[in-house]
């Protein structure tokens, strides 16, 4: 049991963070809060990948002349790092577009509260 927790506590924390993000996106009424929830979900997903790249006793994936390249156990796995670099960029740009939409919504309705927006879109 203790081994399980020691090996997986990072995953548990990240799942918790993922749940918090989903909760914020569904329950919070302010659009900015929804965007924050979105960024939390993305961070949690990215961290899961990073955790998967970790190796006990591995060093960072930059070649060190003193450490042999032949034994891959001595370096961390560079693949998830690369993928997550891309994923971070994607996350940032998505946030940028969501800000653009939020500003656009505010221009039209002068509010960012979801309930009020739903009411106003219905009544027209």
């Amino acid at each position, binding site marked *: 049991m203790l081994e399980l927790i020691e090996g997986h506590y990072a995953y548990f924390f990240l799942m918790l963070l993922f749940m918090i993000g989903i909760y914020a996106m569904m329950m919070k009424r302010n659009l900015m809060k929804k965007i924050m929830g979105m960024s939390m979900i993305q961070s949690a997903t990215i961290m899961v990948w990073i955790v998967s790249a970790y190796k006990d006793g591995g060093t960072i994936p930059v070649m060190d002349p003193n450490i042999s390249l032949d034994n891959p156990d001595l370096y961390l796995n560079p693949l998830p790092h690369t993928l997550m*670099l891309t994923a971070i*960029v994607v996350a*940032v740009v998505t946030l*940028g577009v969501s800000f653009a939409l939020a500003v656009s919504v505010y221009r039209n309705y002068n509010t960012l509260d979801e309930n009020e927006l739903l009411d106003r879109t219905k009544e027209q």
Partner: protein
Amino acid sequence: MTGQTHSPIIEVAGRGLAPIIQLIGIYVFFHGHYGPGGGFQGGVLLAAGVLLLRMTVGAENSQAHVAAKRTLTNCAIGAVIFVGTGIVAILGGGYFLDYAHLPVQWLEPAYMRYYGILFVELGITLGVMTGLITIYDDILEVDYA
């Protein structure tokens, strides 16, 4: 925020810090082959320098540094550098983005990949820097005419 601040301290600090941030950005970009860093981080730092200027000295005054109406075009040029490299590799008889088939045959393949990576990262830096500035300008409706 779009206007000039009225505090001289902020303005001087912004003017002083922005070039340093951009210098670090350029360093990070060229250091990418040997340590943490690379095109994207360098581009973000360069963009951060410009955004700092945009915020401190005002959007109008920072137009001379990077003009808002050109950012989108420059972003496209950055992307063209990347995609164009890939197309040139196809024309050279290889697969898409295969640096070993770029038409610079006097280099051996490993070094062609080395310089290919550098060239492509140049495109990334330009594209990311101007792309992020464009998003900021659009959110704040910086006048670009």
